[in-house]
């Protein structure tokens, strides 16, 4: 049975080789981050032990924005250059980004209750992050809304690109508006203003979450490519079936 792979086989070979290394790196980084974060770093003089929530809340929020930026870039490349892999990368990224946005909101709420006294406030930072979650969900829904995958990919890409304006709004919301949420302490002018004992676990978890994203994205891209092959084969078998009758 001869079957032509319409997919970039070279990418699949690269993904299979790289994936175990990325997986190992992720486990290493996150274990180290958890160790330093939970066992080997001080409590905050004001917030006490709740500062430990920072080691999952902040990396999740960073990844929520990082994934959306990757999603928007992939959609741009797909729309402009019709690159088939870019569409798959975007489709693979969306659920991961949505997961991280959800985690940022939930861990933030769990931190806000003891420290602010409220599970949720309509604060500029929190509200724009909620909008980001809806953008992710909208992208995924629109992507699957059509029978023809190409139309789904095209319309959801446009939504993703339009929605990108929300990313700088989230980033600078704490500076533009008078927000209850604190301003940036790491990615800001003049460099991080956190003590090394807390910065170390934070960066370990940040990089660990990034390699986790690459790991799961590779798996999901391979899934999408395999799915395309199945669809192509089914179409060909249906076509040959009709011609034999």
């Amino acid at each position, binding site marked *: 049975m001869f079957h032509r792979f319409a997919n970039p086989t070279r990418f699949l070979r690269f993904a299979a080789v790289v994936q175990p290394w990325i997986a190992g790196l992720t486990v290493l980084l996150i274990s180290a981050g958890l160790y330093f974060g939970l066992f080997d770093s001080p409590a905050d003089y004001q917030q006490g032990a*709740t500062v430990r929530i920072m080691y999952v809340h902040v990396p999740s929020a960073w990844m929520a924005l990082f994934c959306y930026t990757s999603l928007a870039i992939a959609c741009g490349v797909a729309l402009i250059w019709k690159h088939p892999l870019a569409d798959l990368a975007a489709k693979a990224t969306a659920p991961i980004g949505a997961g991280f946005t959800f*985690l940022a909101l*939930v861990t933030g709420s769990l931190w806000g209750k003891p420290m602010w006294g409220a599970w949720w406030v309509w604060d500029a930072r929190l509200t724009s992050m909620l909008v980001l979650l809806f953008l992710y969900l909208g992208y995924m829904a629109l992507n699957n809304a059509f029978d023809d995958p190409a139309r789904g990919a095209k319309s959801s890409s446009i939504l993703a690109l339009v929605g990108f304006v929300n990313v700088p709004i989230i980033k600078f919301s704490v500076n533009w508006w008078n927000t209850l949420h604190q301003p940036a302490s790491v990615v800001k002018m003049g460099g991080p203003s956190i003590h090394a004992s807390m910065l170390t676990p934070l960066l370990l978890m940040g990089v660990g979450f990034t390699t986790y994203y690459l790991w799961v994205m590779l798996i999901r891209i391979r899934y999408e490519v395999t799915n395309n092959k199945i669809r192509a084969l089914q179409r060909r078998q249906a076509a040959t079936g009709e011609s034999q009758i």
Partner: protein
Amino acid sequence: MTRLSEFLDMGGYAHFIWPSYAVVAVVMLGLLIISQRELRTAQRDLDALDAPEEAQ
């Protein structure tokens, strides 16, 4: 309080800190496992489509 229960108590904030770590673990591990399972079933479906003659 033993050292362990003192650690778990997290200065009285245990109800907020441990659920935060738990939800992160559930979502991240869940997404990883689901993605791997989806890939495996897709690969199996593809193999089945590829070699129906030998399979019968």
